[in-house]
């Protein structure tokens, strides 16, 4: 056994500073993050009979209902957007990632209470692993979206290569929100309910159900582009589905119109990092 190796040279004394968001070395951080995300993913999808199918059923069911409502009942979608069904599906899949990751992250630190109170490890791993687990789902869902995209006759284009950029922005935003929510929930249990409502509001404030030009009102369009998610979604649409659709810049009424969204994006990221860093050392005590 390893303990039987001869005495080795004494390691130098190093000061320890208590728990933190990242402490403990980057290799350990990424090993732990990867392992936790993968095991959680496996637990969910190998623990149930239908496994991965469940994570598809939800967005697809929502897709089916909304598609019916907005093409047969209200007809706003089908009249404006060229590929409304795929646009709807892409939007739902993107938003499902954001919503699922952030909602799971809210309670993640508290759920892992036993581990947090009894072991030392980089605290950031917890909310990040829930985001990553959702990202795995998201990746699989994107494959399904790709199938629909091709089936609906959208031609592959060079601009598809820009889609990962939209995903990257979405990922960063989701992570920042998750970090902030997960530590706030430790102190204020109301956060869970507030977030549920707020995420629902965000869903309508993001052009998922409707193509943005269907609003037919420039002021509302500009207003919508204050929402960073709306900007990301709009750009994804332009890059993947309809090169002719109004870009985020168009919808915002010029590059300057995107400033508020950019400011909010940066602010949320900074706030996420700041709150998490501030709270991380005390999580074990506050739980």
């Amino acid at each position, binding site marked *: *056994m*390893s*303990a*039987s*190796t*001869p*005495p*080795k040279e*004494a*390691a*130098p*004394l*190093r*000061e*320890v*500073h*208590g*728990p933190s968001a990242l*402490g*403990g*070395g980057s*290799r*350990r951080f990424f*090993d*732990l993050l990867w*392992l*936790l995300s993968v*095991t959680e993913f496996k*637990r969910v999808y190998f*623990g149930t009979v239908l496994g991965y199918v469940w994570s598809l059923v939800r967005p697809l069911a929502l897709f089916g209902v909304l598609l019916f409502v907005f093409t047969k009942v209200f007809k706003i979608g089908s009249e404006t957007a060229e590929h409304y069904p795929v646009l709807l599906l892409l939007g739902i899949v993107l938003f499902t990632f954001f919503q699922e990751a952030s909602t799971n992250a809210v309670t993640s630190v508290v759920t892992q209470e*036993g*581990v947090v*109170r*009894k*072991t*030392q*490890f980089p605290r950031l791993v917890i909310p990040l692993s829930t985001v990553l687990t959702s990202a795995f789902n998201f990746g699989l869902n994107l494959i399904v979206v790709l199938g629909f995209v091709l089936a609906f006759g959208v031609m592959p284009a060079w601009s598809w290569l820009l889609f990962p950029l939209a995903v990257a922005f979405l990922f960063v935003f989701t992570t920042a929100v998750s970090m902030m929510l997960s530590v706030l929930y430790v102190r*204020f*249990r*109301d*956060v869970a309910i*507030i977030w549920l409502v707020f995420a629902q509001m965000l869903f309508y404030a993001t052009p998922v159900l409707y193509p943005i030009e269907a609003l037919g009102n420039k002021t509302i369009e500009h207003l919508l582009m204050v929402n960073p998610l709306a900007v990301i979604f709009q750009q994804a649409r332009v890059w993947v589905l309809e090169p002719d659709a109004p870009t985020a810049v168009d919808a915002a009424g010029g590059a300057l119109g995107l400033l508020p969204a950019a400011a909010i994006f940066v602010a949320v990221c900074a706030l996420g990092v700041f709150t998490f860093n501030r709270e991380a*050392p*005390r999580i*074990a*005590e506050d739980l």
Partner: protein
Amino acid sequence: MNLPTPPRAGASTAVQVEDLHKSFRIPIHRVDSLKERVVRPFTSRDYRDLHALDGVSFEIEQGEFFGIVGRNGSGKSTLLKLLASIYRADRGTIRIAGRLAPFIELGVGFNHDLTARENVVLNGVMMGLTPKEMRDRLDAIIAFAELEEFVDLKLKNYSSGMLVRLAFAVMMEADADVLLIDEVLAVGDASFQQKCADAFRQMKAAGKTIVLVTHDMKTVEEYCHRAMLISEGRIQRLGDPAAIGRDYLRLNFEGEGGGETPEAAEGEEVRLLEAVLEGPDGAPVTNLEHDEEIRLRLELEVKRDLPGLDVGFLIANADGVDVFNFGIPVGETEGTRELLAGQRVTVRAVVQNPLAAGRYFVHCGINRAFEGGIALYLQNAIEFLVFGGQQTRGVVHPELRIDATVEGER
């Protein structure tokens, strides 16, 4: 396990703690919702500070088995969590040489929905190893834990004994330089315990430093080179485990043991004023250590002229077994003959204490000399507790010498 050998002189320091302070803010009115904070932003911020650790400094040398003992709430768990980087200190520094196994309890990182194989890797990574290193060590871990047949069984189907064995095996194999262990030595069956003892010996040989937190003084005396007693966030004593053990017991039984003393009992001839157990300084105590003399004091008031009294004591244990009795025969001393009404008699007895640890009762009988008959009988006049000493069968544990010799060829 062999008797502890002190670490080699001049060994380097493995853990260094300087002037450590930690206090917790205990909200008098816990704010759990935003609404409360909004409605009463100021009134709800009443806190009181609980000083869990108040200026603790000590050093542990490399290769040392170091015991930390203390009563519940003494601050020893806080200290352990600070060492493990679970809490952040308010003031002071902690320095640690090498890698520390950051587990306060065995098996905390375990996910019960995963198999032993997956958990071993996960747990190892938490302790700072790579997944590959853990996979390489898997076989050794499973073998040590004697769980070969259950590698792919989910942990939720494990018995608690199996879980602890697995956790212990992971910790042993994690190859940390400093281990923090909280009350885990008494796990598993006899053969597994032997294995643990062997593993500890190997770790000692390999220069590992072990910090052991426990309530069990026997473990401390058996394994530790040095020990530290904490009380109310301060170090009470640091040094020889046996001495620490005695201090700990004393601390534990402080103010405990005394039962209800009977109301001042009264007979026709005498009245009991007081019946107490005394410490060496004469102050009343309720418990004493094994080997510490039993000092009894009885005060009586004589109500009518008497030719004499004799006083007897009987010590019985909690099971009702009479252990021994003693007394003062009549006329032996002046306090027992020709007494006049209104006089006060004080009886003092100092008895060598052979009693094994446990609860005891002293019954007193006061007899009329010459006239015959009992003047006063006091059931459970004094109740006290004896602590310390070796665990023994039977009710007494006298001081003794024992030796075995042999003659003839080997």
